[in-house]
């Protein structure tokens, strides 16, 4: 029992423990190899910079969080809708899929200038970039989830005379939830990447701007503080999903003990 309790403790706090281990390791590497500050600052330096400038950082972070979340929300809605279309119709599947893959192979940063020219500098291009970069995983996973739906379950609904829409709502989507939540984890990281990238190209606000500004004044510690804030926001969003996911896909995770 004692062993199991210790194990539970370990499982519960594993992420913190690992993070601390990694930070210590990073600090050690930086000191031992004397990695120059302007290349890769040690965590202590980053922390220092972060604390010293936390007000500025948090202002920029809020902006980035805002654009990211709006872009992400649009991406999820769009990804779900198109994913449903792709997953339910062979015609749409054939027509859209290659196109989408092609489009997504293109670095979105190439479109930012065009967006800036159309929508001005700042929030809108960041939102759109976050959207453009993050809808694809949602689309692919929703489409895959729907197209691998067991026909037996579909038949249950069909036998009641359910419409296509009913089938989608009552069987297709619930069955697709594990796929959907998996894609959210990928999509949120991409949304952050998208808005930060757009901010580096054209914005006066946001972590992307902060990082550019910091790196142009060679303040790498601040750059890394920005990166870490992004990472932390990503983790925060993940924890949020993890909570929701538990509710929606508990049935699918019934096998794997403590995971879900």
């Amino acid at each position: 029992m004692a062993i199991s309790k210790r194990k539970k403790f370990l499982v519960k706090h594993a992420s913190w423990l690992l993070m601390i281990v990694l930070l210590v390791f990073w600090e050690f590497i930086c000191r031992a190899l004397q990695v120059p500050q302007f290349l890769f600052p040690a965590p202590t330096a980053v922390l220092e910079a972060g604390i010293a400038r936390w007000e500025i950082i948090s202002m920029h972070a809020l902006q980035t969080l805002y654009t990211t979340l709006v872009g992400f929300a649009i991406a999820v809605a769009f990804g779900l809708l198109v994913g449903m279309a792709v997953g339910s119709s062979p015609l749409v599947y054939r027509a859209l899929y290659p196109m989408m893959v092609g489009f997504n192979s293109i670095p979105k940063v190439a479109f930012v200038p065009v967006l800036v020219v159309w929508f001005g500098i700042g929030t809108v291009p960041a939102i759109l970039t976050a959207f453009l970069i993050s809808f694809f995983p949602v689309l692919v996973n929703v489409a895959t989830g729907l197209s691998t739906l067991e026909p037996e379950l579909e038949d249950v609904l069909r036998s009641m005379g359910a419409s296509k829409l009913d089938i989608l709502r009552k069987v297709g989507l619930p069955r697709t939830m594990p796929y959907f939540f998996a894609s959210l984890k990928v999509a949120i990281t991409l949304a952050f990447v998208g808005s930060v990238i757009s901010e580096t190209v054209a914005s006066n606000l946001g972590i992307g701007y902060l990082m550019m500004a910091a790196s142009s004044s060679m303040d790498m510690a601040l750059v890394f503080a920005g990166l870490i804030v992004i990472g932390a926001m990503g983790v925060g969003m993940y924890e949020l999903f993890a909570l929701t996911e538990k509710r929606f896909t508990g049935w699918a995770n019934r096998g794997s003990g403590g995971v879900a």
Partner: protein
Amino acid sequence: MTNINFTLDWRIEGPSAPFLMALERGYFEEEGLRVSIDSGNGSAGAVTRVATGAYDMGFADFNALVEHVAANPDDSLQAVYMVYNSIPAAVFAAKSSGIETPADLVGKTLGSPVFDGGRKAWPSFAAANGLEVDAVSWESVDPAIRETLMAQGRLDGITGFYFTSLLNLEARGMDMDDVTVMLYADFGVPLYGNAIIASNGMMRDNPDAVAAFNRAFNRALVETIEDPATAITYVKQRDGLIDEELELRRLNLALESVVITDDTRRDGLGSVTMERLETAIDEAVSSFGLSMTPVAAELFNMDMLPERASREVPAL
């Protein structure tokens, strides 16, 4: 043979001609050097590349070097050949916004990336022309789109490298008659431009190779000035993508604006005067808000320059 890997400030363009010419014509080899040249990612990035030892030498912004050494006093990177005798930055402003002189910039919106040399040196420009530092407001935009935004009238003006932004503005359909161009050097900014820099290790272990590099480069630079059109063919040879005509214009603009100046006519190519160097460093320190002032003599190593006679600006 000594191996030297060298990083440019930016992509392969017209102004890279002397480096490529020295390579292709074997001037480096004649000096006993085996040089490889890579394209760069910004003249500040080049400083980092050399500082970390990833590259032995590079073509980098002298002001970025000042900044780097101010932040990392232990790093003894040195500039060894001042290619651009003055900072190539300029303000481009639309006459339609009513801008003819620096004073007209007050209250206007300029655009450029935060790392742009012109933007960073703005306080110098402002001081030299009797403007408040915050007389203009800034939009941070990527280099790739600032000219587009200005051409569209979304920005009153931009800062940028003279010979880059000028060509970009033209390509976006702006008539240069409608644009006020204020080259920093012409408006009292004493800052230097891009220089060849050498890493700590290079200067310590093999200063002769650095000097040799400079000799070979100097030779190529002189020949480039004499015959830019031929020089451009080496650029084309290296990178088939470039538009020769355009790059020739770019090269000529660079040569005219920042390589052939009163200073270089007087002191020869590549050199600096200690006096101006100190002013320039002070100016950079105050402009960029640096915490310390590096020693001028440690930042630029005069000993590496080829002899004066070979550095004469050729008469055209």
